[in-house]
């Protein structure tokens, strides 16, 4: 029974997607089914969380479900461990909030057309990526997720959206081809695609006749693909246009969850699987050497992370539009997630490595919630005032104080002000980097300085957004829009579907935004629980042996 539970979130997402396709004729029914499906998804993830991680602090379980009882490495295998379930928890939280928001926000034509099936297929792809125990299945789940996200980016079909989608589609198709090449190479080198089997073979390459040196290069090719998905420098350039084009709730999921799939894949494959390999001591590249593949990836990730922090931060400062500012901020924040991972990869001690992964996971969780919140605030601003351009906005706080307060909570969480969850995320990132500096790791002091600059930049661009949009004199747009949009239905305002905005849907959007803001505060105040969950997730990520034993791939001769 507990093994079957592993597949539950997948099935829920799949059936919801199909049901929303079947009920397309009735608008209200589609929305209801879709929302209930989102709720059921949260319930399925909660049940899995309860099975794997709870009670907090005790040894977390690792459960593998072999589909149709075909044993790994031959069959399809789904693995739920603390790391997968931690990421699923983030996905479920952000997804339910975004879905509740979308039901009210997306125009009724779009909802009738394709929105709900696409949304749930996207969540299906995300869930599959988190749960799969097979490299090629990871590719397939990526494609499921990307195919839906292509069309969601393209959703409004205007000039801006087609242009952004073109970049997004072309880049990701090239990424997929590169991923196939890496997977093919890994298969021919190691003779398996099952992650647990791969780890087992890399642990004992002699017994299986595996040459580990090519694995390093192929893992590097794969790494570029994951960095593209996560939007880490130098693969970040698709991010702003795509995030600006997609509808606000979709952007919240793209930034809060889909990006984290890339981060998850890096943690899972490099820390659980490839870390098992021991390279010959004779192998060294210019500036890089060591016997673990992580020793080679650490410095590269280091450079990519610090460059992301700076490029994203500097890019965000000068933006004139709320969504593009948030998108550039996303690039910078992913740098903050990658930085502790880089430290963890090069860490000399086990405890520092664990702490690095914990810091990355906590930061990823915080960023998912807070950035999701901010994108939904941006969507609400658009619903209420019909624009998110800085030129049009001003003085929003004086007429929509709750909205302004929610923005402030999200922004402060990313800046890192206690008692919000972001404070602990940032604290851990700086703590890990400082510890690395103390052990004398090369470049750690520079990384610390860059992180500090990044933190200051974060303060700068959010302060600017706050000053321009929420404070100051009310702009003409805000003044004109308010009486119509915040009272009973008026005829002056124009919503995304061209009709007047109903008070009900604006109120509903506000409820979602405020609920998410409360969650951000809640995870900060009750941070202990989040930390313990992240720690067991990090332990699971670093514990290759338990992962292999849980899957227990059959021995293959030849």
């Amino acid at each position: 029974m507990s093994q079957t539970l592993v597949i539950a979130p997948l099935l829920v997402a799949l059936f919801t997607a199909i049901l929303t396709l079947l009920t397309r004729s009735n608008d209200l029914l589609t929305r209801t089914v879709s929302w209930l499906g989102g709720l059921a998804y949260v319930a399925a993830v909660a049940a899995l969380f309860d099975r794997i991680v709870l009670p907090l602090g005790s040894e977390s379980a690792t459960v593998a479900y072999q589909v149709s009882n075909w044993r790994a490495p031959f069959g399809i295998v789904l693995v739920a461990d603390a790391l997968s379930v931690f990421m699923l928890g983030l996905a479920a939280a952000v997804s339910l909030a975004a879905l509740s928001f979308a039901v009210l926000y997306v125009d009724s034509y779009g909802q009738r057309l394709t929105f709900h099936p696409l949304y749930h297929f996207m969540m299906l792809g995300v869930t599959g990526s988190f749960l799969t125990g097979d490299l090629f299945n990871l590719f397939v789940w990526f494609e499921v997720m990307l195919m839906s996200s292509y069309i969601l980016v393209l959703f409004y079909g205007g000039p801006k959206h087609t242009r952004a989608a073109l970049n997004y589609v072309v880049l990701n198709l090239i990424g997929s081809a590169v991923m196939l090449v890496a997977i093919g190479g890994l298969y021919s080198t190691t003779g398996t695609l099952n992650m647990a089997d791969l780890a087992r073979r890399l642990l004992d390459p002699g017994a299986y006749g595996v040459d580990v040196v090519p694995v390093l290069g192929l893992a590097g090719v794969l790494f570029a693909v994951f960095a593209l998905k996560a939007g880490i420098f130098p693969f970040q350039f698709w991010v702003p246009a795509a995030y600006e084009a997609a509808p606000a709730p979709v952007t919240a999921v793209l930034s809060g969850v889909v990006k984290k799939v890339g981060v998850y894949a890096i943690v899972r494959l490099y820390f659980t699987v490839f870390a098992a390999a021991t390279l010959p001591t004779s192998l060294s590249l210019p500036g890089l050497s060591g016997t673990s593949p992580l020793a080679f990836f650490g410095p590269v990730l280091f450079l990519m992370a610090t460059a992301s922090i700076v490029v994203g931060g500097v890019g965000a400062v000068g933006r004139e539009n709320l969504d593009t500012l948030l998108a550039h901020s996303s690039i910078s924040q992913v740098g903050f997630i990658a930085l502790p991972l880089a430290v963890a990869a090069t860490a000399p001690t086990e405890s520092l490595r664990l702490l690095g992964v914990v810091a990355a996971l906590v930061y990823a969780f915080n960023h998912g919630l807070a950035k999701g919140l901010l994108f939904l605030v941006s969507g609400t601003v658009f619903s209420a005032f019909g624009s998110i351009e800085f030129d049009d906005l001003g003085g929003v706080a004086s007429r929509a104080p709750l909205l302004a307060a929610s923005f402030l909570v999200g922004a402060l969480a990313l800046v890192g002000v206690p008692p919000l969850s972001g404070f602990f995320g940032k604290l851990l990132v700086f703590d890990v980097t400082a510890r690395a500096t103390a052990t004398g790791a090369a470049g750690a002091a520079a990384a610390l300085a860059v992180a500090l600059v990044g933190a200051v930049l974060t303060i700068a661009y959010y302060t600017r957004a706050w000053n321009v949009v929420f404070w100051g004199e009310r702009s003409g747009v805000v003044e004109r829009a308010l009486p119509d949009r915040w009272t009973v239905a008026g005829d002056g305002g124009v919503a995304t579907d061209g009709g007047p905005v109903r008070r009900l849907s604006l109120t509903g959007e506000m409820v979602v935004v405020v609920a998410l803001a409360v969650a951000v505060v809640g995870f900060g105040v009750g941070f202990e629980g989040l930390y313990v969950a992240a720690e067991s997730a990090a332990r699971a990520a670093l514990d290759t042996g338990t992962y292999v034993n849980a899957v227990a791939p059959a021995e293959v001769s030849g």
Partner: protein
Amino acid sequence: MTEFLLASVLAVLFGLGTFLVLRRDVVRVVWGITIISQSANVYLITMGGVGPGDVAPVVAHGGDPASVTDPLVQALVLTAIVIGFGTSALALVLTYRVYEEHGTIDVYDLGGGQ
């Protein structure tokens, strides 16, 4: 010999695909991607082994089970072809939509997407 031939074909295909992706015309970019993903498929097939003794994994047609090539890569390629078919169709439709919205499919005229 087969290995060498396939390796050369792959090199040409990947090179051609990359060349097309770097063109200004969006349709050529889409064809470039299609060629790159197809060459990734050919590459996958070669990973299953194309030695002189290897025969196609169809036992009923007289192949000796001991000398067949790895059938797994062929299953992978089938999956990849189906996915590639869908994405290529989407990319072509998208190209048409881009033309409708912008009146051009020249990447330089389309601008930076902002």
